[in-house]
């Protein structure tokens, strides 16, 4: 690695040593000298200072190629990743090429083989999935003897450790075997490479589906099976998955888990062993995922059927199972898993892997060890037995002795149906004893006459066993169904809650509450920078946030139950939508919960997927909303522009035109014409001024800072002032005003209200046909208010447009073709009247002609006349 790096460095490639372990060897040190290297990070751990690779420094420096020695290294506790190969993956994700080294014995899938060869279990393994990212692999090969010589010379390991290492691991036979293994592995990798290239070039023959299904049961050696199966699949270049069939035991064990917390409860060895089995399954599944396989927990009361279904669903051709425990009786009846699979799955290739260690004994049909009576069961047994005895005493008067046995049989069945087999068997024995002792002649002895007694015993035992077996299987089915149902219900609940969420905030609050209730864990979410719920937010420490950020950045889980940033109490899951990671879900399970069950993991993951979809939907909705608002703003802006261009230009056109006409052709005109043009200039100038005033008013009203300086003023005065102003601009328009003398003073901002009345009157004048008057009517209104009606006899406004005339620039949206004038006038009226707590409405004019605009203003307390 160093030699190659030196070559590259000489060629000017940006090579940087992330970490190279020289183990104090001079030769290695000499090779490393002259290459740029990154300072190591010091990590304090339990009083000792450990040196680790500075991952962040490396990411920040971003060389073209980083040298990272010893891929299998385990980082000091508290580092970001548990293992160095994870650091390397992060470097690769950041676009940095990495040169690294790894010894053959560290490869995960070879772990068992190495163990078999050397007798040493290597704990620092590197998952095979890392190998898939290799661009190239170079085998550093030495004959075993030479290696040992180098060891002796101190070129490979620290001298003081060399002897010890030699004796243990590096025996010539071991090294030769490992060397062969290394060659084989590299050859397989090269082979896989070639296959890929051939496929890419269309040279098929590998295109057929050769999925390998690996079945594990968690009863010891599951991990071994996974490794073995993975190697088989790897050799064939086939995709593979690991499954386990849950017949309901795990769910039942979960029901007992609460009892387990109350420690010494003696019933629960079963639950405990069940939990052990679950732990093993979890570990095996985790291993499978790290090796690059898929995992699934199947639910079926029939293991064989479950496996065959799974194989069919994946299009698998081979099934890998472990060798099942010898069960002579089952074998006689062709009931072992192997036999069943062979019989019912004839088209599959069955690989049975013999596991080296004795498998744990599992509970079987007749294996009652480990079974203990659950709480309440002894009571039920006693009750049933006593009940049966009493019933038998009563029944004895009416029926024969033979029929009495059925009474006891009913009791046995009753108990069997409510409990498990142990209880059924105990009840059977008790009932038989009671029956024998109390009813069978000679009474009150346990003596049984051969003819009847033996048959009865057999009958009782058989009935109890069959009924117990049936009942307990039924029970497990129910429990298993219930577990599956819980999952489905939780998912349904999530979907229902999410479908109601319209924006991101609601998605967050809905999903956090569902996660909380269905996983029984504290939940925190962050999506697109928005996070919640706030109550939980405060409980996240800086450490937790680092893990959350990491998850989001890398799209992988981190924190508790993972092997990245494990010192966080939270488990963080990335939320994906499409290709991107858009957020992260944090879950904190009770600290007593040491492991995450497959069920919980799967549920959390499925829910997170749904949340991602909902977030995506919410984002689309909000983007649409933003687009709509932008569109509206844009429309308003263009309406404003066209209003300004029209309303400013119309009077300007008249003024410029008139002035220009006067200056050019004035001498050719009569004096009346000249006078008329001069009038045009002044009238249009004032119109322009009014329009600009309107714009300024609008700006003032639009901003929140409008303050009313109220004063007492008579409504008649306001109307008078407005109509005088109107007459100035529109001398031809007649105003008929009718003001109720009862109306007193109103407490308003006089100039503003006058402007409002003027705007309405000007608007009316514009639409009034020539010669028709505008009418202004003021009347007291309900609730101590005054009502001012201003109507014209123009064309009127269609009902559906009456509301819209108060919209800013309504008349202007029609642009060039619209009637000239005031898109603002009525909007300003509304603003002014609104500021006085009054209201404006557009109504049809009197006798159905024209338009009536009604202003309603509160009057306030009348002042005393002083």
């Amino acid at each position, binding site marked *: 690695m160093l030699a190659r790096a030196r070559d590259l460095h000489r060629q000017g490639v940006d090579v940087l040593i992330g970490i190279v372990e020289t183990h104090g060897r001079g030769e290695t040190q000499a090779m490393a000298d002259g290459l740029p290297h990154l300072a190591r990070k010091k990590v304090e751990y339990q009083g000792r200072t450990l040196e680790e690779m500075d991952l962040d420094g490396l990411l920040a420096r971003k060389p073209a190629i980083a040298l990272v020695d010893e891929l299998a290294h385990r980082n000091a506790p508290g580092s970001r990743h548990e293992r160095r190969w994870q650091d390397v993956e992060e470097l690769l994700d950041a676009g940095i090429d990495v040169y690294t080294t790894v010894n053959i014995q560290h490869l995960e899938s070879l772990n068992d083989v190495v163990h078999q060869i050397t007798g040493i279990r290597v704990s620092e393994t590197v998952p095979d999935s890392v190998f898939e990212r290799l661009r190239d692999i170079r085998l550093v090969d030495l004959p075993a003897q030479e290696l040992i010589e180098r060891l002796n010379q101190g070129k490979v390991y620290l001298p003081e450790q060399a002897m010890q290492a030699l004796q243990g691991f590096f025996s010539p036979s071991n090294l030769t075997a490992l060397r062969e293994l290394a060659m084989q592995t590299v050859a397989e990798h090269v082979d896989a490479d070639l296959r890929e290239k051939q496929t890419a070039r269309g040279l098929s023959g590998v295109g057929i589906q050769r999925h390998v299904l690996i079945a594990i049961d968690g009863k010891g050696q599951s991990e071994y099976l996974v490794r073995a199966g993975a190697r088989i699949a790897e050799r064939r270049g086939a995709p593979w998955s690991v499954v386990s069939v849950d017949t309901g035991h795990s769910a039942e064990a979960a029901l007992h888990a609460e009892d387990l917390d109350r420690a010494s409860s003696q019933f629960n060895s079963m639950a405990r062993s069940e939990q052990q089995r679950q732990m093993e399954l979890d570990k095996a599944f985790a291993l499978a995922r790290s090796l690059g396989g898929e995992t699934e927990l199947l639910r079926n009361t029939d293991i064989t059927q479950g496996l065959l279904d799974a194989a069919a669903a994946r299009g698998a051709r081979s099934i890998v199972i472990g060798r099942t425990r010898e069960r002579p009786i089952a074998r006689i009846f062709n009931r072992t898993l192997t036999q069943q699979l062979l019989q019912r799955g004839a088209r599959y290739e069955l690989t049975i892997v013999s596991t080296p260690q004795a498998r744990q004994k599992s509970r079987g049909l007749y294996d009652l060890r480990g079974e203990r009576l659950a709480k309440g069961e002894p009571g039920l047994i006693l009750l049933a037995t006593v009940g049966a005895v009493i019933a038998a005493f009563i029944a004895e008067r009416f029926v024969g002795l033979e029929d009495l046995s059925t009474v006891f049989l009913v009791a046995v069945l009753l108990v069997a149906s409510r409990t498990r087999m142990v209880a059924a068997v105990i009840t059977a024995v008790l009932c038989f004893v009671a029956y024998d002792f109390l009813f069978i002649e000679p009474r009150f002895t346990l003596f049984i006459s051969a003819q009847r007694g033996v048959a009865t015993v057999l009958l009782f035992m058989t009935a109890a066993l069959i009924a117990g077996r049936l009942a307990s299987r039924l029970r497990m089915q129910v429990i298993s169904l219930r577990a599956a149902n819980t999952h489905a219900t939780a998912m349904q609940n999530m979907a229902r809650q999410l479908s109601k969420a319209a924006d991101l905030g609601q998605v967050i609050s809905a999903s956090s509450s569902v996660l909380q209730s269905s996983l029984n864990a504290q939940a925190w979410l962050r999506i697109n920078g928005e996070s919640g719920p706030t109550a939980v937010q405060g409980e996240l420490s800086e450490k937790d946030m680092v893990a959350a950020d990491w998850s989001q950045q890398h799209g992988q889980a981190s924190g508790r139950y993972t092997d990245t940033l494990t010192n966080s109490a939270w488990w963080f899951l990335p939320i994906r939508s499409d290709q991107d990671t858009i957020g992260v879900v944090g879950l904190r399970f009770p600290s007593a919960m040491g492991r995450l069950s497959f069920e919980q993991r799967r549920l959390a993951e499925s829910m997170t997927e749904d949340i991602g979809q909902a977030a995506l939907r919410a984002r689309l909705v909000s983007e649409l909303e933003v687009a709509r608002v932008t569109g509206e703003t844009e429309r308003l802006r263009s309406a404003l522009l066209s209003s300004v*261009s*029209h309303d400013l*230009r*119309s*009077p*300007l*056109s*008249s*003024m*410029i*035109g*008139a002035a*220009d*006409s006067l200056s*050019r*052709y004035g001498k*050719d*005109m009569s004096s009346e*014409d000249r006078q*008329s*043009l001069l009038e*045009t200039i002044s*009238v*249009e100038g004032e119109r322009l001024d009014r329009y600009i005033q309107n714009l300024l008013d609008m700006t003032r009203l639009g901003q929140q800072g409008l303050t009313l300086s109220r004063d007492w003023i008579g409504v008649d005065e306001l109307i008078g002032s407005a109509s005088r102003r109107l007459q100035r601009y529109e001398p031809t328009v007649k105003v008929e005003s009718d003001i109720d003398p009862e109306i007193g003073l109103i407490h308003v901002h006089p100039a503003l209200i006058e402007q409002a009345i003027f705007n309405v009157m000007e608007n009316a004048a514009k639409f009034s046909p020539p010669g028709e008057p505008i009418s202004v009517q003021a009347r007291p209104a309900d609730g101590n208010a005054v009502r001012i009606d201003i109507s014209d006899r123009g064309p009127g406004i269609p009902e559906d447009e009456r509301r819209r005339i108060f919209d800013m620039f309504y008349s202007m949206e029609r642009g*060039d*073709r*619209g*009637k*000239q004038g005031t898109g603002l006038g009525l909007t300003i009226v509304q603003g002014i009247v609104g500021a006085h707590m009054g209201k404006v409405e557009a109504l049809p004019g009197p006798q159905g002609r024209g338009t009536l605009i009604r202003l309603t203003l509160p009057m306030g307390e009348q002042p005393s006349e002083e």
Partner: protein
Amino acid sequence: MSAAIDSAPAPRVLVIDDEPHIRKFIDISLRSQGYLTLLAATGQEGLSMLAGKGADIVVLDLGLPDRDGEDVLKELRRWSRVPVIVLTVRSDEEGKVALLDAGANDYVTKPFGIEELMARIRAFLRVSGLRSETGPIYDDGNLHIDLSQREVKLQGQVVTLTRKEFALLALLVEQAGRLVPQPQLLKEVWGPTHEEDAHYLRILVGKLRNKLGDDASAPTYIVTEPGVGLRFVGKERI
């Protein structure tokens, strides 16, 4: 300048505009120059006036209360070829091109000086009157153009024009004062396949201006209406 036409009957100008003040000053100015005016406040009124009384030229405002000015223009074009000058507040060239496509002959953007409008009106009335003459001659003392002789002189010196340059100049001078749309220029000088090739026109008009001693930034003869077309202005023809 006094009345445009002395011998012939006074030309009649129909003004269709809903703004009374604009109508008024156009009316006064036109009458002062010896035109007869017809005034209409709505599109419908204008159309019936044109149909009933006839006019030599129409000044049409686009912002009419009763119907869209463009509609009026289209309807008018179905039965009349009278020149139409449009008054518009639109200053974007797409709008102008659309107007020309809809059948307008020229446009004036509000606000406008009266002389601008008068020059347009004169240009149309003159063209329709002068087509029959032997061949138009332009002479302002500086530039002399004789289209029938294919002769161009600048300050007495003969200017040599290429065939295309002369064709372009001739097109513009024949319709002096009027806007000639860009596609029309391209089509007549280069042929119908080149209607989109505006850059041909830009280069050719540059050379022509050069030879006529005209400055594109302050043109005295050939005015560019960006995105719409060219207009030969110069002085009034003698």
